[in-house]
C-alpha cells in the first residue's frame, strides 16, 4: 500500500500529464497544489490565484516571505517574470468568463453525473464556498484530485451526491489513488487504474456505476 504522501504524488503527477503548453491553471488548496511539482518537460503553464494574480511562482525560501503575497490558501508565494496583479473582480471575470484552461480541486463527494460537493457538511462543517463555485462553473477543464475513499473507507464517488452541491454537471475528470475516471455523456468512464490495484477492486471501492472500456490503462508505475 501507498502512504498518504505517495498517493498525493501519484495523483499530482497523473493530473500534471493533462496540462498543455501555455495553459492557465488554478490549483485548489491542499492535495491539488502537488500538481505544480510535476509539470512535464517542455510544458509551460501559468498559475492563477483567485485573490488576484497570474504567474504565481513556488513558495519562497524561509525568511523571504512577503506578507502581502499569498495564494488563496494563505500560503506564501512568489512572483514569476511576466506575472500580473489585479483585483478580485477581474480575477473572477477570468474564472467565470471561461479564460482558465484547468482547475484542480479536492472534493467531499463527486457523482457519476459530474456533480460536485466540496464546500459544506450540514450541521458539521460550513467553511463556505469561497471561490470554488465560480471555479468549477467557469473553468474549461475541472479535475478532482482526492483519495478514492474517505477515512472510514466509504467511496467518495457516488451515484448521486448527498451533500449540498458546489455545482451540477461541472466535473470533467477525477483522479484518485485508485483510478482515473472521466465524466462522459453516458456516465463515468474508468480510463485508468493505479498500478497497485485491479479493476475489480476499483469497482468494489466505487459507489458510482463505472463504465469499463475494453482496455483500461495503468498509471502511477513510473
Amino acid at each position, binding site marked *: 500500500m501507498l502512504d498518504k504522501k505517495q498517493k498525493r504524488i501519484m495523483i499530482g503527477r497523473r493530473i500534471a500529464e493533462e496540462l498543455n503548453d501555455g495553459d492557465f491553471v488554478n490549483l485548489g488548496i491542499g492535495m491539488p497544489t502537488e500538481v505544480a511539482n510535476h509539470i512535464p518537460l517542455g510544458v509551460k503553464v501559468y498559475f492563477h*490565484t*483567485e*485573490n*488576484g*494574480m497570474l504567474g504565481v511562482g513556488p513558495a519562497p525560501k524561509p525568511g523571504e516571505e*512577503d*506578507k*502581502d*503575497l*499569498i*495564494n*488563496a490558501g*494563505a500560503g506564501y508565494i512568489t*512572483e514569476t517574470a511576466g506575472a500580473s*496583479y*489585479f*483585483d*478580485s*473582480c477581474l*480575477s*473572477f471575470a477570468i*474564472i*467565470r468568463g471561461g479564460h482558465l484552461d484547468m482547475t484542480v480541486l479536492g472534493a467531499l463527494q463527486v457523482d457519476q453525473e459530474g*456533480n460536485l460537493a466540496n464546500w459544506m457538511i450540514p450541521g458539521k*462543517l*460550513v*467553511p*463556505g*464556498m*469561497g*471561490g*470554488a*463555485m*465560480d471555479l468549477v*462553473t*467557469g473553468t474549461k477543464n475541472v479535475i478532482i484530485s482526492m483519495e478514492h475513499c474517505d477515512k472510514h473507507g466509504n467511496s467518495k464517488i457516488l451515484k448521486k451526491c448527498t451533500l*449540498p*452541491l*458546489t*455545482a*451540477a*454537471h461541472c466535473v470533467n475528470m477525477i483522479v484518485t489513488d485508485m483510478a482515473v475516471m472521466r465524466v462522459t455523456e453516458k456516465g463515468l468512464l474508468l480510463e485508468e487504474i493505479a498500478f497497485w490495484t485491479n479493476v475489480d477492486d476499483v469497482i468494489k471501492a466505487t459507489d458510482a456505476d463505472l463504465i469499463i472500456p475494453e482496455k483500461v490503462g495503468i498509471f502511477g508505475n513510473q
Partner: protein
Amino acid sequence: MPKTITAKEAAQMIKPHSRVMFSTFLVVGAAEQLIDALVEENVKDIHMITIATDYDDKGVGKLITNKQIKSVQCSHIGTNRSTQAQMNAGELDVELIPQGTLMERIRAAGAGLGGILTPTGVGTIVEEGKQKFTFDGKDYILEMPIKADFAFIKAQKADKHGNLVYYKTARNSNPAMAMAAKITIVEVDEIVEVGQLDPENVVTPGIFVNYLVKSEVKEC
C-alpha cells in the same frame, strides 16, 4: 479632495446597524488599524461585508470575536471558529456567497447596476429564492447589488486627491469596495503629494475616496 483623519475618528463614524465593507483576504489587504480602532470603540450590531472572516484574533475576525457583528455577507468562514460558533448559536446571521458573485454584487452597487446574472450557484442552494433565467440553454441566477454605508479600505499609497495604488495580492477586494460605499475610508501606508503617482498606474481614482488615515508605523 479627501480629508485626512485618525483611525479613531474613522471608527467613530460607524454606528449600530451601519453596513460596512471590510476589504481583506485572510488579513492581506485589511485595514488593520481601522479594525483595531473599531474594536476599541466597541460599536455593536454592525453589518459586515467581507470576502472572508479571517481568523479569531486577526483581521475582521477580531470584530466577530468581540461580538460587534450582527450579520455578515461573505464567502468563507472556515478559518474563523468564532464565526461558526456564533452562527450555530443563532447570534450571528451569515449569508454565504460565492466569491465571484460577492465581488460582482459589490461592483454592481458601485457601478449603478440593478443586478447581474451569473451561472455560478445554479443547481445549488445558492439559487434558492432567486429569479432564474435561461439563455442559449445556459441557466443564470439574478443577483442583487450589495451596497454599504462605509468601506474600510487598505492601500499602499494615496496621493492627496485620494488616488490609490495597492501592493501585490493586497489589492484583492479593495478597488471594488472603494466604489460601493457611501463613505470610503482608506488606511494607507504612505500619503504622497499630488503628481507623485503616475496617472496611468492609479488603480482607484480619488473620486471614490472620502477619507485617508495614515497607518502608524508599528514595531515588527
